[in-house]
């Protein structure tokens, strides 16, 4: 490997030295940053700027030059509600139905996610038989494609699916899971937790393993009960990792789209339509394409995500500073 790198280094050495002489060591850093800055600027920063232009313009034209300026009209339409608690009172009721669904989804998904990830991590941290196998089993769903996950669960839960076949076999009442708004939503949350749990379990497992053993040994010498050990040692020392898991799962929860969309299509009705699906449908799948409304909604979602990211950064820095 070194024999390959050395000639390469020799080739680029003299132009780099020349460049350093011309620019100086400080400015040379920009030369190294330039490729990444270009990619970031073109594929991330530019679309963000364009999004603002789309949000303040109307019509179904895609080219900005063809789109008339409408000011804050798209935002006004989205926010025009008599009561934000009642989507029916809103001008764009589907947006607020999606916001309500997303909030419920986050509360339930994040709550269950943290609880089950924590429980699983605690079990997998113990000296149980076939621990390596179980760690792999719980992580396996993370490796799957969201669409595959959705289609497998759809196959299980549809009217004539595997679950109803089992229920029927045992003489139990079958349920049309996909037709009931409550069940469809509950299964969406369950599938999302099942799908992502392995990732958060892994993070919590790493956190558990970083807790010094001598603290537990001291507690054992004091004959502390397992519940007391958990409450007074494990939980406080795991809290920084827990907060990271909480914030990451919150952000992921707001962004949820693919697995739920492929599983229910947002239905029945709009029972499982989440806010990202609303944006997708208005911007890309609808007719006419309401790019302005979709962009305005995406900016509102971005504000929420930025706030959550800021919280995560603040907590991470606070933990790093002790």
């Amino acid at each position, binding site marked *: 490997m070194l024999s390959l790198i050395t000639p390469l280094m020799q080739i680029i050495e003299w132009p780099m030295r020349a460049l350093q002489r011309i620019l100086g060591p400080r400015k040379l850093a920009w030369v190294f940053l330039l490729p990444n800055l270009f990619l970031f600027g073109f594929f991330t920063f530019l679309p963000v700027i364009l999004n603002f232009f789309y949000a303040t313009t109307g019509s179904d034209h*895609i080219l900005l030059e063809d789109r008339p300026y409408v000011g804050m009209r798209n935002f006004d339409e989205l926010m025009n509600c008599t009561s934000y608690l009642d989507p029916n009172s809103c001008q764009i009721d589907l947006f607020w139905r999606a916001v309500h669904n997303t909030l419920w989804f986050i509360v339930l998904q994040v709550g269950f996610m943290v609880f089950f990830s924590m429980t699983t991590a605690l079990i997998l941290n113990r000296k149980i038989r076939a621990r390596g196998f179980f760690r792999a089993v719980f992580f396996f769903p993370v490796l799957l494609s969201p669409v595959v996950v959705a289609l497998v669960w759809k196959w299980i839960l549809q009217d004539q699916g595997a679950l109803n076949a089992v229920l029927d076999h045992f003489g139990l009442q079958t349920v049309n899971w996909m*037709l009931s708004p409550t069940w469809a939503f509950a299964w969406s949350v369950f599938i999302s937790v099942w799908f992502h749990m392995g990732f958060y379990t892994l993070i919590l497992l790493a956190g558990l393993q970083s807790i010094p053993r001598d603290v537990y040994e001291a507690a054992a010498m004091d004959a502390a009960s397992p519940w007391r050990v958990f409450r007074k040692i494990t939980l406080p020392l795991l809290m920084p990792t827990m907060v990271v898991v909480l914030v990451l799962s919150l952000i992921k929860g707001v962004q949820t789209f693919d697995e739920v969309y492929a599983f229910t299509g*947002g239905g029945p*009705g709009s029972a499982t339509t989440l806010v990202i699906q609303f944006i997708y*449908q208005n911007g890309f*799948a609808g007719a*006419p394409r309401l790019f302005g409304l979709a962009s305005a909604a995406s900016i509102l979602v971005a504000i929420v995500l930025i706030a959550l990211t800021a919280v995560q950064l603040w907590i991470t820095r606070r933990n790093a500073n002790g």
Partner: protein
Amino acid sequence: MIQKRKIAAAAVAATFLAATAASAEVQLRFECAQDGNECDTMMTIFKQFEAKHPDIKVKMDLVPYKAILENLPVDLAAGTGPDLAKVTDLGGLHKYYLDLSPYVEKTYWEDNFGKTLDWYRAGPQDKGIYGLQTQLTITGAFVNKTLFDQANVALPGKDATWDDWAKASREVAKATGTRYPMAMDRSGHRFAGLAIPYGATYFDADGNPELNDPGFAAASKQFVAWNADGTMDRNVWAGQGGTSYADATKEFVNGELVFYYSGSWQIQKFADQIGDAFDWEVVPAPCGPAGPGHCSGMPGGSGVVGFKSTKHPKEVAELLNYLAQPDNYAMLEAKSLNIPANATVAKAGVKYEGATPGAAKALNAFSAQVPTISPVGYAYQGYKNNRAMFNITVTRLTQAIVGELSLTEALDRMSADLKQAVNAAQ
């Protein structure tokens, strides 16, 4: 040495000449989503065209149907679209169409493609020729004849209403233990096949689109009621959200459905997949409270259009004109098992190739319904924002079916959504 130089010079000259010849050749890029074998059949005809026009080559890009619906409009807006494509959003993409009228014999096209030409136009004042309707489809009902025979229930006759069919289907389902009496594709286009017989007009007296006229409201009310009482298979509409498409093909093929409202494009699939498992039939368009003149399915289908962004408008027009000629058009319809939109071809009749007797009978049954298509159906299909109306119908009606909105609220929301969509499209 001199010999070698001569050979090299000759090789350079040959390469230059070949490059010049290649640059004189026109290549047309054709984007097509395969529906059965339609694209392949078109390419067979295009090869014949190439043989007669050695300077024109057609390159087909086979794409998924979703790409035609979602990617093609973006490509066209960005100016990177193909020279021609097979499209289904006939009026919606009008602004990108190439007007073929300067290049083709207008009278031939007007005489033979009549009303379908309007579907590609901007409005009544527009007299351009923009697209060749290659696949005329019509929505309609299929019934499982074997189930009717087993239940000893006679098929309702020619002027039977939707109510008659619902009653008969329920009776058959009950007698035979069949899971679902009726089902309809989750599509606003298909719903029009119920709404028109109920008197839906879809446009007010001034020609403005509307989704809450009394006929439309009555059909909506009936449809919601049928979903509630189990007459309609609830999984199809209520099992989805947003504008997602869903159908009951699988249920019909599996013999779990008595009456299925879909369209003529299903014939080949049913012929292939049902085989001789049971007898199925296409029945006359159901009527409704609006009376005999409104027993109508919805026309539709796909067509091939050229785009004005092409650098070769004349060649595109020549190619489409070639495909539109009776012999070629008849070959396309015969091989792809489609209902012809060309009057000359329709009048002469099409000898469908490889169609089973059942499929041929079904194709003829649908062809017989073409003359009875309501003017409302033609107007709705030709309206440039009809896709918005289809999507709104599906979204809001589903909300009424699952109980998120009352029917009145759903109809009010449809009107508001339509106003927003029309404003955006303007």
